């Protein structure tokens, strides 16, 4: 085992770096640029049972040190992911992938998770109960401890693979929600999804995003994410995957010192398509600089 390797829910990762869902498609745009097998794994585009176009455009806005998106889970639907995306991915990615799943009802979450649970290449299922851009689903499950626990328990009962629940930062207290997921059988927690925000165009005097609000990501959210990862990791015994504004090897180390077992990288991939490759390359030197021998011993 290398000095960068970590164990995420019983599966060894060569390193803790995981491109976050929604910033890495189903992998092959990036496979054209570098060998994506250097990654720990990656979390693929949020998948729902039915195909979705998502929200009307514009659905991207910019702000200081970050961006807003209101994409709204555009994806080809679970069946097409299985029949088209995964076979295509298999040609360029030899590792287990993290399947990211979203839904609009508990039944839909369960059914989509069950479909992806049956796929050999899927190592973990990251259940997104925190998308801020869809109505009547997504985040409404992740801002209520009882609803989050219900999704967790029902998905767990229908699947074999490790279930990681992806939580929303748009709550007054993340701890009871994370604990409820742990008690309901979750194998891990990942956080944070994006923070709800908005921009107004002074020329048109209207919101920049057609959806009015969107999810804030990028370096602007890093301290918020770090604080919530810290709070959650102290409160639960299951592994925590930290994310939110991570853009460098140093950010990865900070996240791990806050209690993260592995670290997802999101918006950074959109600005620098080589961001994850660069972070993995820079990790050993950053560890040397701060006297960290192995990432497993960081805490």
């Amino acid at each position, binding site marked *: 085992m290398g000095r960068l390797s970590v164990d995420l829910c019983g599966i060894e990762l060569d390193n803790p770096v995981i491109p976050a869902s*929604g*910033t*890495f*498609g189903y992998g092959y*745009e*990036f496979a*054209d*640029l570098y060998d994506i097998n250097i990654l720990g794994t990656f979390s693929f*585009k949020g998948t729902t049972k039915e195909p979705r*176009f*998502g929200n*009307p*455009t*514009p*659905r*991207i*806005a*910019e*702000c*200081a*040190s*970050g*961006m807003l*998106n209101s*994409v709204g889970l*555009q994806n080809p639907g679970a069946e097409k992911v299985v029949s088209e995306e995964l076979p295509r991915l298999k040609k360029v990615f030899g590792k287990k992938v993290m399947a990211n799943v979203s839904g609009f009802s508990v039944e839909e979450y369960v059914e989509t998770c069950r479909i992806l649970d049956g796929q050999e290449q899927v190592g973990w299922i990251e259940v997104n109960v925190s998308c801020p851009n869809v109505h009547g689903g997504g985040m409404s499950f992740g801002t209520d401890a009882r609803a989050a626990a219900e999704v967790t328990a029902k998905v767990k009962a229908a699947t074999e693979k490790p279930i990681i629940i992806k939580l929303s930062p748009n709550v007054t207290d993340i701890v009871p929600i994370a604990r409820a997921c742990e008690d309901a059988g979750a194998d891990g927690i990942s956080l944070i999804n994006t923070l709800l925000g908005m921009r107004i165009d002074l020329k048109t005097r209207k919101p*920049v995003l057609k959806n009015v609000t969107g999810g804030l990501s*990028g*370096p602007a959210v890093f301290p918020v994410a770090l604080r919530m990862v810290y709070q959650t990791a102290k409160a639960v015994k299951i592994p925590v995957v930290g994310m939110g504004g991570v853009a460098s090897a140093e950010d990865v180390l900070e996240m791990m010192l806050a209690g993260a077992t592995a670290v997802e990288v999101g918006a950074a*991939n*959109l*600005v*620098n*398509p*080589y961001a994850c490759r660069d972070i993995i390359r820079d990790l050993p030197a950053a560890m040397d600089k701060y006297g960290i021998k192995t990432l497993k011993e960081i805490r």
Partner: protein
Amino acid sequence: MKQGIYTVSENLKIADGVYRMTLSGDPSAITAAGQFVNLLTDGCYLRRPISVCEVGKDGFTIIYKVVGKGTEKMSRAKKGDEFDVLTGLGNGYDVAASGKSPLLIGGGVGVPPLYELAKRLTAQGKRVSVIIGFNKKSEVFYEKEFLSLGCKVFVATADGSYGEKGFVTDVMKKVGTYTYFYACGPEPMLKAVYKKSETDGEFSFERRMGCGFGACMGCSCKTVTGNKRICKEGPVIKKGDIIWED
């Protein structure tokens, strides 16, 4: 697509609020007219997608309008300054579809990508007509450049201060017959061209983008042949594929 550091060799104001920047560096990823580059500017988080006006052996030229913080920063760049650029993005125009006498229709900063297209079409011996439209005389650019390629050029200004008074669509009837068309400009112009056009053709679209290379799904649109990402399966979409929003 290629990422690289490109050096400014020229950055000139060519019309009201409009600048031409030539960047030197590896242009090999730019394979078609109508593709774009995505340029990182100091102080802005996201890159700025800008269409390519001309490709050379040692670099490429872009023409951009100052519309916000990023393009304002770009306008102040000096010879020797460097930019981190993703090059060779998007599909570009289908030159093979042009027929013998294609019509190119550009509005404002939709004009630049048509220049590389006109170069390629005239090099193949096509009889190229170009209609370029602007708001007023002070914003007009590249009339001479198209003329020196041997194109038949029509200029329209909305206020009539130069060329024909009116929109590009008002000039379309004066062009005579054409075999195919290529259009780039603001969406209301594209819609008007769509209605007025009598042949097949293609349109180049602009959208707010996150990444510019197909990862974030920020710029998607619906088409007859399924969802397309303006940055990846676009920015050029064939007439028969378009579904207009609203």
